[in-house]
């Protein structure tokens, strides 16, 4: 029996895949009914598809995490807002501490220069306790006046007026250290999930 030309193999694959457009093709159905070659291909493809659909699942190569971690904000942690304050408080404390330290160091350096070079001839300082010491000698009375930042003639000292060593720098040092200690205490006293 003389067959019409064989349909394209991709058409046979579509027929095997139950593609609706192709399955309704009357000409193709008639050809398949008469052509063993094409019918054989379709049958094999149907068996192949059936086997593919039965391929088993595969065990993962490593244990998989079934759940993503719980985001911090979703824990309902009533102490969360307190713990979130820790970092800024500690950072602010560290900043103040640094500014206080730099300021104090600058002040001490300034006083040391005065002492070493004699630029402030009427005063001296002790690097260890930071206290001004009035020099002994004939200028002693004038030195007492200079401690107020003025010369005996009422004008400002040419070398500038050093601030008091127990002034703002020390306060910054103490304040910064206090904030840091407070922040760290907060960090370890508030437990996650604490109500």
């Amino acid at each position, binding site marked *: 029996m003389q067959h019409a030309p064989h349909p394209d193999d991709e058409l046979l*694959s579509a027929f095997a895949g139950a593609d609706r457009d192709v399955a309704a093709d009357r000409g193709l159905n008639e050809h398949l009914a008469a052509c063993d070659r094409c019918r054989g291909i379709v049958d094999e493809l149907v068996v192949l598809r059936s086997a593919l659909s039965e391929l088993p*699942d595969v065990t993962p190569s490593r244990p998989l995490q079934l759940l993503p971690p719980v985001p911090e904000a979703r824990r309902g942690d009533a102490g969360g807002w307190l713990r979130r304050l820790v970092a800024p408080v500690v950072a602010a404390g560290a900043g103040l501490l640094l500014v206080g330290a730099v300021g104090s160091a600058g002040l001490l350096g300034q006083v040391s220069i005065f002492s070493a070079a004699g630029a402030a001839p009427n005063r001296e300082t002790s690097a260890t306790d930071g206290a001004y010491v009035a020099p002994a000698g004939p200028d002693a009375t004038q030195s007492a006046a200079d401690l107020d930042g003025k010369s005996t003639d009422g004008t400002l000292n040419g070398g500038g007026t050093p601030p008091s060593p127990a002034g703002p720098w020390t306060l910054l040092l103490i304040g910064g250290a206090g904030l840091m200690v407070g922040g760290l205490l907060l960090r370890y006293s508030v437990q996650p999930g604490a109500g």
Partner: protein
Amino acid sequence: MIARAVAGDRTAFAQLVEHYQKACYGLAWRLLRDPDLAADAAQDAFVHAYNAIAKYRGGIFRSWILRITANASYDILRSAKRRPTTALPDADEGESELPDPAAPDPEAESGRAELYRHLDVALRLLPEDQRTAVVLCDVYGMDYGEVAATTVSALGTVKSRIHRGRLRLRALLAEHRELFLDDARLDR
């Protein structure tokens, strides 16, 4: 359990994922052909599924999570192609890379285990676009539209890839034809 997971029950979600993790990993492994990349894809899919579970609107859950896994796998496939340093395995790396199937032993003990092994080897030998299309359509039951959406391809292109992939598989498995036909006869 699905309803509880949709309502935000993490335990229920974990149970669901545990139930389907071998199916998800199997799909990712068949698309990516690499155990580590497949595990990464399955892991990504679980996170996507967790984030999207509230929007789940019914239907077959297995199909839903498999679609997510297919998308996650395809993302990895595309990024691996963009970054050649993340080498995908060669198609002809052979059977040594084939994992043990997760199916219970009764099937593995039957003659079908050999059949499945030949199928997986042949799938690995297909060009990537054909393998992806055949795996999604014939192994995991997606329709043409779903395959087209996952692979960001035109419907006609997807059909052509599926049909050419099937024909190529048939040719690759020609020497094992008897195995398939015996299996088909056993089914009847």
